[in-house]
Each structure stands twice: as C-alpha cells, then as structure tokens.
C-alpha cells in the first residue's frame, strides 16, 4: 500500500485564522494540556519515552531519554529552551508551523515544562523572521490572558512563564550550546561537551533543548498515546514528520508523512520533478547531509535507512535539483555559507571552510587544477571529526558526497576552463545573464 500523508502538526494550517487561540481550541487544542496536568510529570515523560519520539532538529536523539538525563530536582531552576533558530539551508518547516499554529508549540512547551519541572521556558527564534516573532508574542500573550500561562496554569497550581527571544542572524546558534551562550547575551559560540545542557545548560542549570517540531509533537503523543504514535513510521523511527520539498519540483511545500516514506512517494504527491526534466541530486536533510542521487529514490526516509545509505535524515529538508544544475556551483554556494557562518572558535572549521571557498571560486572561474580536487578532500579530512561542533562536519558533507558522485563534473571545470552549465536553464524564469562575477 502506498504511503499516505499524516497531517497532525500541519492539520490546522488551512483553518480560518488558524493562529488564534479560538481556532486552536475549536480544533481541540489545549485538551492534551489538561490531560497532562492531571498526570504525574513522570508519567508524561514515560509516555514520550514510550512513543519513541526522536529529536526533529536533525540529530534524532530520543526525546524522552534526553528529558530523562536531567538530574533529580535540587530546588533550583530547570529550563526548557525551544530551538526555533531554523537556519539549515533547505529547512523551512518550523517557520510555517509557528506562523500557522503557534499555540501547538506553546501547548507542547507547557506540557514539556511540566514534565521536566521547568517554570521558565524560552523560545529562541532566529531574528530575521519578524512576522513569526510577533505571532509568537501575540500567542503567548493570548495564552497568558486565558490563564494557560502564568502563576496557575489552567487552574492546576503549576506556574510557568514563556519568554520568546529573537536571535540576530547566526546559523551557529542552532547548535544547542551556542544557542545557550547567545541566549545568555554572548557571542554564539559552542561550548565544550560534557557537561551536556541536561546537567549544566542555561545559566549553568539543568536544561532541555528541543527543536520546534519535536515540542509540537508532544501534545499529540499525550492526547493519543504512545501506541498511536508508534503506529506510524518504522520501529526505530516512529511517528510522522514534516518533509520540506523545494527546488525543481512541480509543487514544492511541506508534506507531513510517516518517517520511512521515500522520495519517490513524496515526488508522486508533489507532481514530480518539474516538467521535462529529471532528478539529478538532492539533500535528504539539509545542506549538511551528504547528497543523494536518483539511485536513492527508494531509500526509506527514516534515521536508520538514510544512515545506511550514506547520509543523514537531518531536518528532512529535501532540496531537489534537476539535470540543469551544476553540482559545483551548488556546493560552492553552500561552502560560501559555511565559511560565512563558521563562528571562528576552532581552527579546522574556520580555516578549512575559508580555503575550500577559495578553491571553489577558482573552479568556477575556470582556474582550478586537478590538485585542487585532492586538496578539497584533504581539507575535508582535516575538518571532519576534528571540528569543535557539527557545523564543520556538515560543511564537508556536500563536498565529499558531490566528489563521490560527480567527480567528472569537477574535472570538466578544470579541463574545460570553467562551468559547462547554463544557469538560465536551472532558473524558474527566463532571463539574459549579465555576466557579473559572483564572489
């Protein structure tokens, strides 16, 4: 049987004024909160653990286990920090979720805070999305007005405040410890681990950091139970997730489906690759996950299968490129991004991304050499596993995977004196190139 969509997180996106408390409540919103508040916090945690929910921010760490790592209460504060710094190239799921259904995230944050014994939660939102910031502020204010936040959450005697915090443009702040430093008013550079945030996180206190989609999945787990959640997805990658399709696809957008769906199935739903073209390469989980090609159309998009096929499920950001796309140009631009966003703390990432950027610009200008291709792999070898955090590792993914699948194309840039592709063919409109240099 063909896999079908499973709208849970995206179920209310088409409702009239879906972002309001009224609309959310009419659709059954905040009933999971009442269920949770009637439970022992430990039972809420157990339900999430039993569901098998894994982190939707990219790493896929089991959510209940992460919560369980908090040390026993010592009377001091414990924090929930929601990672809403969605910045991984290709990832565009949390922003529309918070825009269309902010109360789902707030309900998830309240239930999670209750489960872990937190009384002040934070939502760290990337600073560029001012419209989402306003929407979250309005939703938090609405929830407080309705008694769902504040000193007596829904009449339970439990107290919670949620602060929405805007970042200021730094990809690295999606890394959880860099995010915590940023939230403390510092440069957003990652911290040495251990200690992990569960032990010493925000303000040195026990902290859970979870992605928006993870926290937004919690109310449905509480409402419908772990077995319901496990009825979707695979044994080790249970449940549903939002798959973000972008690029050369007929109907790009957010497709919420069980984990384990394939790109072939998703493309069927999305009307296929744009007319008259064929799939060349794609990212299964953002630019930091090794590229896949048409030979991976039937890889089940769950954590295990994607890993076994040589990549990572990441954030399910499926950036799709057809045969008109130059892979060197694509990777070159991603490397510009990593070089720009490297925080500078560790040498392998700071210097490695810088030198790779120079090499890619040479290749695109027709000034690259065969030796440059060897140097790229050597630089990647010196970053991967030696960088301070995952940003550096991620920067090597598109480089090594594209060289693995498309080495001929790199060599054509060397022997042919530059890029053999016509950028106009890849664009979604016709235009006359101006011949400006992109550096």
């Amino acid at each position, binding site marked *: 049987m063909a896999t079908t*969509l499973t709208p849970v997180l995206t179920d209310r996106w088409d409702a009239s004024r879906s972002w309001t408390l009224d609309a959310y409540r009419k659709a059954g919103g905040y009933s999971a909160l009442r269920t949770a508040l009637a439970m022992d916090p430990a039972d809420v945690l157990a339900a999430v653990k039993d569901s098998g929910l894994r982190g939707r921010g990219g790493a896929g760490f089991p959510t209940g286990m992460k919560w369980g790592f908090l040390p026993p209460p010592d009377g001091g504060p414990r924090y929930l920090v929601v990672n809403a710094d969605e910045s991984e190239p290709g990832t565009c799921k949390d922003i529309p979720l918070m825009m269309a259904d902010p109360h789902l995230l707030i309900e998830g944050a309240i239930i999670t805070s209750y489960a872990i014994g937190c009384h002040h939660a934070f939502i760290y939102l990337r600073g560029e999305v001012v*419209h989402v910031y306003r929407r979250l502020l309005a939703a938090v204010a609405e929830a407080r007005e309705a008694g769902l936040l504040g000193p007596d959450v829904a009449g339970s005697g439990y107290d919670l405040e949620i602060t929405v915090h*805007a970042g200021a443009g730094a990809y690295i702040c999606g890394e959880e410890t860099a995010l915590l430093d940023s939230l403390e008013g510092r440069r957003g550079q990652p911290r040495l681990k251990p200690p992990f945030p569960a032990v010493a996180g925000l303000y040195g206190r026990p902290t859970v950091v979870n992605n928006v989609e993870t926290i937004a999945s919690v109310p449905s787990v509480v409402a419908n139970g772990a077995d319901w959640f496990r009825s979707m997805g695979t044994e080790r990658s249970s449940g549903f997730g939002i798959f973000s399709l972008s690029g050369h696809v007929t109907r790009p957008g957010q497709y919420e489906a069980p984990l384990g769906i394939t790109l072939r199935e998703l493309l069927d739903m999305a009307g296929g690759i744009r007319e008259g073209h064929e799939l060349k390469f794609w990212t299964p989980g953002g630019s930091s996950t090794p590229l896949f090609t048409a030979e991976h159309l039937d890889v089940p998009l769950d954590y295990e299968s994607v890993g076994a096929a040589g990549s990572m499920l990441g954030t399910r950001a499926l950036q799709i490129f057809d045969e008109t796309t130059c892979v060197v140009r694509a990777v070159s*631009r991603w490397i510009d991004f990593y070089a720009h*966003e490297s925080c500078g703390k560790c040498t392998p990432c700071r210097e490695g991304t810088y030198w790779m950027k120079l090499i890619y610009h040479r290749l695109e200008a027709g000034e690259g050499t065969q030796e440059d291709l060897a140097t790229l792999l050597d630089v990647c070898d010196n970053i991967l596993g030696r960088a301070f955090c995952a940003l550096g590792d991620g920067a090597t993914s598109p480089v090594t995977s594209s060289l693995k699948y498309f080495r001929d194309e790199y060599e054509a840039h060397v022997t042919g004196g530059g890029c053999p592709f016509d950028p106009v063919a890849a664009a979604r409109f016709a235009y006359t190139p101006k011949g400006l240099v992109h550096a």
Partner: protein
Amino acid sequence: MTARTYEPYEGAKLERLEADAAAILARYPEHPRSGLLPLLHLVQSEDGFVSPDGIAFCARVLGLTTAEVSAVATFYTQFKRKPNGTYTVGVCTNTLCAIMGGDAIFDELAEHLGIGHDETTPDGAITLERIECNAACDYAPVMMVNWEFFDEQTPDSARDVVDRLRAGDTGLAAGRDSSVDTPTQPPSGGTADTKTRRKPSEEA
C-alpha cells in the same frame, strides 16, 4: 570616556528607550545580560544601525563595558555597524534560491540600482544585500525588504518592488524601525497575515 559616565541619549528618546529597556530586562529575571540581543535590536530600531551611542546605552543598562557589548554586536549578521538605507533589500543567494533564480535577481538589482552587496543608493533609499537561507525554500527565489518576505520573485518583480519603494510606495513594506521589536509595541499578527500562501498538505 567610559561607559559609566557617557550618556548617549537624552530627552524623550532617552525616556522611551529606558522604558523599553526595562520591559526587556523584566523578561530575564536575575539574568539581565540575556537582554543584550533584544537591547541591540532596540537601539538599532532607533538609530537604523548599532551606533556608538547604542553600544554605550546597552553597556550602561547592563553594567558592561562598551568593548563587551561591541564584541557581541559584531558577531551577529543582523546588527549593522553603519546606517543602512531606508529599505534593506536582501536577496537570498544561498544555493537553492541562487539556482532557482536568486543570482539573476541579485544581478538585476545590482545593475538597476548601481550598487553591490552591502551598498546603499546615493539617495539613501535602498541597501542591497546578499542574504543566507531564510527558511522559505519552498517559495524560492525569495527576497526580503526590511525582513518582509517576498515569495517566488523574478528579476522583473524585484525591480518593480525597488522602484516602488524608491517612489515612496510605503504600502509595500514597513520602514526600517520595524526591525524586530520595541517591547512596548503591541504584539500584532504582523503584516504577513495578508499573504496568501499555498497549503501543500492539501495539494497531495
């Protein structure tokens, strides 16, 4: 000059900033330094960039040195060290948008306006920037005007937007003081409500 004695703002502006700063700090009980990024957004919304006055104000409010505040401000791309134009036009030229046409849009605007990345038109109206992925990839290529998103742009549509902005068509996007909040601003749904976006979950 030290951060403790130099008072950068005065009069009604100072009063307004003091009130806004107090509202920010109230969100971070016992940890005022967490208010630094919001404070930097606040002073940028007043001055159009993170000015030396703004740095001094943040330092005084938090009891930090101006060097400590500058160290943080310079880390983040959104904090500007010089005044931008009235409208900051950002074209996403990260891979997905670039290939879908973002490069062509940037080139069109650069030629049309006669400026490059991080440069401002002589009339002070438009600053052009290349920007990184802004999580709207399914609407590529995207462009932002003072962080208002414009979906599925073309060179023609983008040129039309900047022409209308220069002609004073303020209905297109908010002025620069909309850059993130001043906390006294009433939370609103935001202008993005007016946009009609597809619902992909329905299409399949």
